[in-house]
């Protein structure tokens, strides 16, 4: 068929039984009848000479819900990624959200050898080690705070809090001044070339500084560094750890103690972190270690948690809004005061929807997990 033949084979798409379970659980299909994973597979596998005009492929959220339900673990999100890459190769493009600003940022980072000013926000109280053996991968947090200032998001506050927790846990780390975007969003959009440029530049910087271990606070960066880089570059380069996984064992052993925070909260499982990388317990362990905090679960949660409706900065439409609205309604139904998440994208997109829900006033505050945990440190356990 194409040069992507082997990649398509690797998704096990030929095992698809046409059973439609993926379509039943897909959050997009529920609101957008034109998006039907089962029919997308059928259309694009049967018609080998397809004309690359299947608009439906841009609506997938990559939430892994179909993969979770599929009896044969057919990797539909990866299949969509390949279809997108093929479509882009044919010169047809996606409709990028936010005026394409985020895509341009990633391309500028990849191609221009810029000297970024990405660490200007670093507070003096955060201690960095002089070595680069373990690094903390910041991700695009400084850029998100500029891009989504009008929504009142503060992603950097989450990063600063995670760094303070690292300090408190006596985990030494350093930061990279020349870190680039991980590129996962470009890959999900099908821009494999753009992703490879970013990935190769990042990995060569890791090699140059002798990085052995990488800690991240963004689930997307975590997935990219742990899974995508290895898959696309074909080699392992360092151990990748999510910050909650590094901190949670220290809570068990008593080396780290969190403070008091009297609040009722609910936790949003980010798709990439939960269904994608099976990290469900450590964020909950951190919430459980906060004295006075009550955790109530949304319905559904964990493996079946509803996506926040965020895509890889392409195609944000009515269906995305309805999914976000549904998730906010589920969060409000728990009676919690705070919706806690550890993904910047969940925070941005749910806050965006909160501002335009047909005049409904926001009834739940949205906060980052690290921010919440670090805030308790000032209030010692009673």
């Amino acid at each position, binding site marked *: 068929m194409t040069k992507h033949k082997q990649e398509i084979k690797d998704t096990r798409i030929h095992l698809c039984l046409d059973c439609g379970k993926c379509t039943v659980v897909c959050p997009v299909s529920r609101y957008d009848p034109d998006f039907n994973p089962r029919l997308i597979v059928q259309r694009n596998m049967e018609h080998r000479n397809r004309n690359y005009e299947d608009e439906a492929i841009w609506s997938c959220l990559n939430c892994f819900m179909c993969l979770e339900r599929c009896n044969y673990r057919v990797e539909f999100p990866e299949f969509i990624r390949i279809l997108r890459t093929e479509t882009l190769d044919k010169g047809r493009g996606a409709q*990028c959200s*936010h*005026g*394409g*600003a985020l895509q*341009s*940022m990633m*391309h*500028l*980072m990849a*191609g*221009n050898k*810029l*000297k*970024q*000013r*990405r660490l200007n926000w670093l507070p003096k109280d955060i201690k960095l080690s002089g070595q680069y053996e373990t690094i903390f991968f910041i991700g695009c947090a*400084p*850029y998100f705070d*500029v*891009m989504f*200032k*009008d929504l009142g998001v503060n992603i950097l506050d989450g990063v600063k809090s995670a760094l303070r927790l690292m300090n408190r846990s006596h985990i030494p780390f350093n930061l990279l001044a020349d870190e680039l975007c991980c590129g996962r969003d470009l890959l999900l959009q099908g821009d494999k070339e753009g992703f490879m440029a970013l990935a190769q530049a990042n990995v060569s910087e890791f090699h140059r500084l002798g990085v052995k271990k990488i800690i991240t606070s963004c689930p997307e960066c975590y997935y990219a560094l742990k899974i995508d880089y290895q898959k696309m570059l074909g080699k392992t380069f360092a151990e990748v750890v999510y910050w909650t996984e590094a901190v949670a064992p220290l809570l068990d052993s008593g080396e780290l103690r969190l403070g008091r925070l009297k609040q009722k909260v609910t936790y949003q499982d980010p798709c990439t972190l939960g269904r994608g990388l099976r990290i469900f317990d450590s964020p909950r362990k951190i919430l459980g270690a906060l004295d006075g905090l009550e955790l109530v679960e949304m319905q559904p949660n964990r493996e079946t948690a509803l996506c926040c409706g965020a895509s890889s900065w392409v195609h944000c439409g009515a269906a995305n809004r309805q999914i976000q609205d549904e998730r906010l309604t589920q969060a409000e139904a728990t009676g919690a005061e705070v919706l806690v998440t550890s993904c910047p994208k969940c925070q941005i997109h749910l806050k965006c929807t909160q501002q335009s829900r047909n005049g409904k006033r926001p009834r739940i505050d949205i906060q980052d997990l690290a921010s919440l945990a670090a805030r308790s440190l000032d209030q010692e356990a009673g």
Partner: protein
Amino acid sequence: MKRNKTNIVVFACNWDGLSCVENAAQSRLSYPASVKLVKVSCLSRINSGLILKAFELGADGVMLLGCRPGSCHFEKDEKFIASEYDKAVNLLDLLGLGTNRLKLTRLARGDGQEFVGQVENFIEEVSQAG
């Protein structure tokens, strides 16, 4: 004539902004050919994505040419300056491209002389930045 290699994209508003460029042409004033003009209906139609796209495609500097404060035909440009312009400036700063590569110029209707002067100064500034 010396060929100028500093690529400048000018997003000119269809109203007072573009009238300055037209006036410059009618008055036979010349400016470097590396200045590429993009006509837009109002500066409020420009977002940070378009500005970054110009840089991605190889522009060395971007000039936003609009009406003077209070003269916007749609009474919308102030909102643009408050949000998208500031956003673009901050993103350019973070990226390390430098904030002086983006210039907001607001001129009176038909001021061709001033436009040519400003665009030449801007080319000078950008080429010095390297």
